[in-house]
């Protein structure tokens, strides 16, 4: 098999970070810490897998963070509203999950339709919907926080914290979605067409691919995955507010690009995205492991590591191209 340097580069960065972490603190490799890091990567991870498809098809979605906040908000409202009728049981929680996922489908459809039907630049569409979702959730929460009923929260909690041994549900979900995503990108017609569209949409059109439909589907897929991320997020914090999911979009896009997917589309690497997500979570985790510097400088270290992680990968590429 041919080794793909685009994926290898970030992998090297990931391994370097793991070694650094282990050197800084022996607890780094303890199962508890690994569980924590993997589980919290799941939100951005799910979103980033969806984002990989959107970007590969030549799109972009800046609204995912706000969308997550909005979906969490309506899911919580729905569960609280249903509680008196349906009672304190899993049925109520399933309603909430359903609302999150269905809301994700609709929100993704909105973005996709504006991009493909109204033919507006994705950057603008999703910048607009980013404002809209953010502002709606703030309004729904009346400027404060929307909280899930305490009983429901206790019932729902194991969805984030429980699992099979130390492999908690978010980790399992992220793993399954990553595998399915990789499979879809590599081995399905949909993935093939997504890559073709991002590479050259005229060629795709000439090959009888319904370009608009496929593009729309990538946004819907991303919406569903944002919904799924929300399903895992709500039991963790039990609330949603205007500050939920701020900057998730940048993190997700960064993970996708660190992973070797080209921002201009045409080449999607779901594995790379997973590695990118892990790199970003590990940076935060490692900064917490040691008191390296003034906390004010955490951002600077983060920035340097992100750039370095990509340098590792690009260096190889230039060598290959020359």
């Amino acid at each position, binding site marked *: 098999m041919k080794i793909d340097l685009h994926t290898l580069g970030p992998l090297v960065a990931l391994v370097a970070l793991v070694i650094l972490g282990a050197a800084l603190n022996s607890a780094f490799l303890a199962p508890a810490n690994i569980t924590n890091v993997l589980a919290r990567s799941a939100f951005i991870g799910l979103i980033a897998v969806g984002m990989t498809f959107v970007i590969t098809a030549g799109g972009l979605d800046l609204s995912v963070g706000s969308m997550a906040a909005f979906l969490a908000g309506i899911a919580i409202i729905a569960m609280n509203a249903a509680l008196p009728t349906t009672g304190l049981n899993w049925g109520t929680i399933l309603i909430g999950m359903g609302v999150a996922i269905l809301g994700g489908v609709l929100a993704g459809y909105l973005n996709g339709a504006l991009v493909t039907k109204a033919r507006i630049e994705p950057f603008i569409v999703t910048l607009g919907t980013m404002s809209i979702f953010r502002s709606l959730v703030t309004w729904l929460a009346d400027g404060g926080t929307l909280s899930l009923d305490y009983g429901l929260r206790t019932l729902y909690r194991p969805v984030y914290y429980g699992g099979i041994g130390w492999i908690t549900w978010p980790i399992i979900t992220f793993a399954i979605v990553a595998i399915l995503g990789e499979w879809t990108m590599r081995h399905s017609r949909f993935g093939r067409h997504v890559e073709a569209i991002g590479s050259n949409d005229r060629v795709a059109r000439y090959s009888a691919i319904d370009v608009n439909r496929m593009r729309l589907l990538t946004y819907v897929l991303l919406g569903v995955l944002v919904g799924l991320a929300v399903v895992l997020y709500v039991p963790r914090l039990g609330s949603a507010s205007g500050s939920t999911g701020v900057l998730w979009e940048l993190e997700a896009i960064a993970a996708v690009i660190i992973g070797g997917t080209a921002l201009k589309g045409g080449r999607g690497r779901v594995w790379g995205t997973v590695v990118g997500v892990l790199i970003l979570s590990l940076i935060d985790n490692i900064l917490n492991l040691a008191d390296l510097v003034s906390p004010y400088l*955490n951002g600077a270290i983060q920035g340097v590591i992100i750039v370095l992680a990509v340098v590792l990968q690009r260096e190889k590429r230039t060598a290959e191209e020359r």
Partner: protein
Amino acid sequence: QDAEKKIIGVSIPSATHGFMGGLNWHAQDTIKRLGAAYPNLEFVLSTAGDPAKQVNDIEDMMATRNIDALVVLPFESEPLTAPVKAVKDAGKFVTVVDRGLSQEGIEDLYVAGDNTAFGRVAGEYFRDTLPAGAKVVVLRGIPTTLDNERVDAFRAALEGSEVQILDMQHGNWNRDDAFAVMQDYLAKYPQIDAVWAADDDMAIGVLEAISAANRQDEMWVIGGAGMKEIVKRIMDGDKQLPVNVTYPPALISSAIEMTALNFVSNAPMTGRFIISSQLITPENAEQFYYPDSPF
């Protein structure tokens, strides 16, 4: 000498606006001071930009730093309640600062300012000082629960008086945003008698906008939280800034210090300490003036 090392984790929001900046400074300053004073205490400080990151930080402190106590200023009450409870359930000492958790009785120690008083004290000053028919505009902070509490209390204090609130927009505790909002208020309302800027960072932007419009003589401004520049001007008897309402960022220092004392002294440090908001007037301003703080 107690040889056993105790680790105290401190988790606070990052310095995204003036008040939090002051709070960050006080936290670091206190940690440095206590770290030197008590060699068997170790501190772990982390700052978070959003609630989810703060939960991550607390998880990391538990999993990798093995803390004995946690001092936390929750970014938001609701999302932090369960994670902080998990820390308590693991048998750690928990100090909650400023924003109460949504469930009673989790923390060992609670040190807080009083947001309701913060709004009320300001509101009462407006009510008592302004003549009937006076018109005021309000700049709100970032939409959050604590902003709601302050604004509701302010409104309640004015209830029944003849003072009219013309408008309330969000200045996001940010000088630039407040400047723009105030400029637009000035364009929109020919008569404004007073401004409640609810935060000294916003007050700075508001004052600039007023003086740019040359309407300094028409209105005064009340901020909040006792920023040193503002306190200085009150001390100097600036007419535009008659008073201020405290909400000291130094409360984090008290919280960290009391938590530390819990480990180094014999006195158990538990209970609720509410540092109420006070009115800073030209007479008492001197005692609220900290020239070294960045805030």
